[in-house]
């Protein structure tokens, strides 16, 4: 007898519906799996057969054919075990066949009949919702993740026996519920790393605040042990709280990448990713035969922290250029193009020179040329994408042990949130939601300068030997500083401060007094 159930397969971040069909007929006793399957899907047959037997259901000596439609797209992953089992059960008439079209199933089976969690549940449930399916049966360890979409009824199962029970008596199923509003509210009060723990470093704190307020990429230069990593880890905490939509996007990514912690329903914290400098270009930007999101996508909505910036492989860094501009990564394969988001804020840290102590002449053994060459390892086009550069000085013993109460992340975040609000109003209905995302043309339009300000920036352009890019970067940064102060117009004082955050240009430093 023929039966079919619904499941879904992943394609990058998006899922599409897959129909799992089973048919039992006379013939050589065997279980045949067809439908352009990768080997882990093909193996589902053996897992399902054994799991069924261990649940007390022996397959009859008949020819069983299982097809995954559409047959033209390659299917991968272990999430088809559950629908295959359900389809076979239905064709064996162990469970009622009607009503299954309205249920999406996904999950892996162990030989004993246990249901194991699988990645990408949120994306699968989303696809089911879009296809008009009302009920999803997923591994119970993933149920909380799927349940964040309120339009769909999500049911968790822990064993094959439980699945059979639910399919026989659908009314007995208990829907898993998650209160997303409560989850999102909790993050405001969650502890963790706080700027209150950072002593001293006033100018770095200020630079980080401005960077967060306008989503500008940030470069920190400082000797080892001065606190660059410590500060970077805290920047995610001063960004505004994630919205439900952002949170869903982040959760989906982590779920697809298999990085979502078990029993987690939503990622309510902004991600902080800190890949080691030996990372490959593929791991940084995403890739693989079946493309998986890379670090730049995994930090979307949060911070991508690259410590020891010049030590990264050149080709790994250069691959960042396009994603930083477009805020998405496109990976092309013969099977199609995969798109992952890359809306991260890049925070890079580096030593000022190979030995790490320049310009402290007591300890630094490098010449000026060596220090310049060290920064020169990062290509100019990449530096051009970093709006704010600051120095992280070494901290003194007094500052380190001081017991003064520092400003907490929460207080800083409130100011940043206000700046974000101002930008939201300004860029209503625009793709650029932040000052950092403005193109040169948009700068002219959204950041007009008064007479006095124009005179000042002209003077700076000549005096400081600015490039065209640096000019726009200064105006964008000044716009963010003005936003932090709630100022509708860019004033002289904002430009004067923005001038500080430009990236040092070594080549024109040497000759004049």
């Amino acid at each position, binding site marked *: 007898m023929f039966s079919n159930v619904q499941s879904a397969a992943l394609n990058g971040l998006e899922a599409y519906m897959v129909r799992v069909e089973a048919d039992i007929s006379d013939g050589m006793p065997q279980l045949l799996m067809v439908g352009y399957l990768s080997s882990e899907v093909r193996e589902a047959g053996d897992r399902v057969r054994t799991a069924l037997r261990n649940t007390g259901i022996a397959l009859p000596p008949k020819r069983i054919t299982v097809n995954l439609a559409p047959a033209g797209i390659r299917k991968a992953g272990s999430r088809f075990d559950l629908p295959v089992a359900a389809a076979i059960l239905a064709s064996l008439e162990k469970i009622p066949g009607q009503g299954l079209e309205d249920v999406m199933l996904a999950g892996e089976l162990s030989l004993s009949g246990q249901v194991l969690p699988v990645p990408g549940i949120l994306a699968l449930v989303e696809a089911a919702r879009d296809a008009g399916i009302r009920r999803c049966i997923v591994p119970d360890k993933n149920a909380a993740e799927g349940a964040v979409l309120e339009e769909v009824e999500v049911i968790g199962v822990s064993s094959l026996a439980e699945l059979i029970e639910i399919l026989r008596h659908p009314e007995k199923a208990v829907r898993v519920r998650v209160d997303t509003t409560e989850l999102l509210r909790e993050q405001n009060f969650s502890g963790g790393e706080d700027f209150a723990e950072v002593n*001293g470093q*006033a*100018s770095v704190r*200020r630079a980080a605040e401005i960077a967060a307020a306008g989503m500008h990429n940030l470069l920190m*230069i400082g000797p080892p042990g001065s606190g660059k990593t410590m500060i970077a880890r805290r920047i995610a905490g001063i960004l505004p709280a994630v919205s439900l939509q952002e949170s869903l996007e982040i959760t989906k990514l982590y779920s697809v990448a298999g990085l979502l912690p078990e029993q987690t329903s939503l990622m309510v914290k902004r991600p902080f990713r800190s890949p080691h400098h030996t990372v490959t270009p593929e791991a940084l930007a995403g890739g693989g035969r079946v493309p998986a999101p890379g670090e730049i996508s995994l930090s979307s909505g949060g911070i991508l922290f690259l410590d020891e910036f010049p030590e990264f492989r050149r080709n790994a860094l250069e691959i960042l250029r396009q994603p930083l501009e477009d805020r998405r990564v496109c990976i092309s394969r013969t099977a199609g193009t995969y798109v992952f988001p890359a809306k991260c804020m890049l925070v890079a840290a580096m030593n*000022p020179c190979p030995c790490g102590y*320049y*310009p402290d*002449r*007591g300890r*630094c*053994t*490098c*010449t*000026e*040329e060596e220090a310049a060459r060290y920064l020169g390892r990062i290509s100019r086009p990449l530096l051009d994408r970093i709006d704010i*550069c*600051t*120095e992280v*000085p070494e901290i003194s013993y007094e500052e380190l042990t001081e017991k003064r109460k520092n400003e907490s992340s929460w207080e800083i975040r409130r100011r940043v949130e206000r700046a974000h609000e101002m930008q939201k109003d300004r860029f209503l209905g625009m793709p650029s939601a932040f000052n950092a995302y403005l193109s040169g043309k948009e700068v002219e339009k959204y950041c007009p300068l008064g007479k006095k300000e124009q005179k*000042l920036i002209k*003077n*700076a352009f000549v*005096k*400081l030997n600015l490039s065209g890019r640096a000019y726009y970067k200064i105006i964008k940064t000044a716009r963010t500083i003005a936003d932090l102060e709630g100022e509708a117009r860019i004033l002289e*004082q904002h*430009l*004067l*401060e*923005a*001038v*500080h955050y430009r990236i*040092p240009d070594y080549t024109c*430093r*040497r*000759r*004049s*007094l």
Partner: protein
Amino acid sequence: MSETREACWHWLSSSLVGETALLWRLVERYGTPESIFAVREEDLQKAFPKNPGGIRRLCQGRREWDFAREEERLVRLGMSFVSCEHLAYPRRLQNISQKPGGIYFRGKLPEDDRPSIGIVGARACSAYGRSAALWFAKELAGAGVQIVSGMASGIDGFGHWGALEAGGKTFGVLGGGVDICYPKSHQELYLRLEQEGGLLSENPPGTKAMSHLFPLRNRIISGLSDAVLIIEAKGKSGSLITADTALEQGRDVYAVPGRLADPLSAGCNHLIGQGAGIALSPQYILDEMGIISKSIKKKKERTQKDLEKAENMVYSCLGLQARKPEELCEETELSLIEVLRILGSLELKGYAKEVYKNYYIRAL
């Protein structure tokens, strides 16, 4: 032997790179370079048994030496050679011990009747050293003093740049051949020196800049100068060799004072302790040396004129030692944001300069 005396000096200088002592012993024994050219190798070896290697190199070069070709090579490289018997040979070098047999140069040679000062110091210098070198060089060159230095990275380079900025004459004494730009990163300086001053060396073209040649080069820097100014030097520094040779040659030595416990000022402070002149300002050195300068104008007191009160406060905290905005906050009791904005404004008005990310000095 029909070759000119100059050509023979050229041969002798070319063959004895870094062996000036041997060169003068040979000249003492045989009188002229022509006669040295004619002596057989065995006789030379017999006469100088202590330095067989030097003699061997001399004779090897002699076998392949082609006077016409070598002359042509100099012309092709745009270089000139003056022997110590030539009229154009710098007069200051005539009376130093172990003077170079000849000088290869591009551009010009220092003028004998114009005062000249050597500026030397650490390669890995601080922002303080950089500003000091630029300032002294600029003001001295502006007063008509020729600036001699070694074109090395750090203080030497800034000495040259300072002089160039004032439109003065400045001369780079190289450790290797004049046709080789060392360090490579000074390509632009190298070209400017050739056009607006001179590049010179006692070593023939093609000589690689090797470490043992640099101490020898230092005696030429001090030799070409009436006084040597040490800007920054560690306790054990090559610049102190220059100071020593300067003293041997009877030149004045000035050192820029530094802070206690600053390793880059240890050498300078030590020199001052030993009796070197203290370089308090360019004007001070000019007065000491009795150079009357018309071009050094009394620096107008710029403070209070076009600065606001807060700006003036920050400006008065700035010196030649690089300072961070945080330190200035503490001293002026202004907020960080105010200090950052004031520094930006001072920088644009030309009163302050960011020498390194977040480090500011007073612009001179």
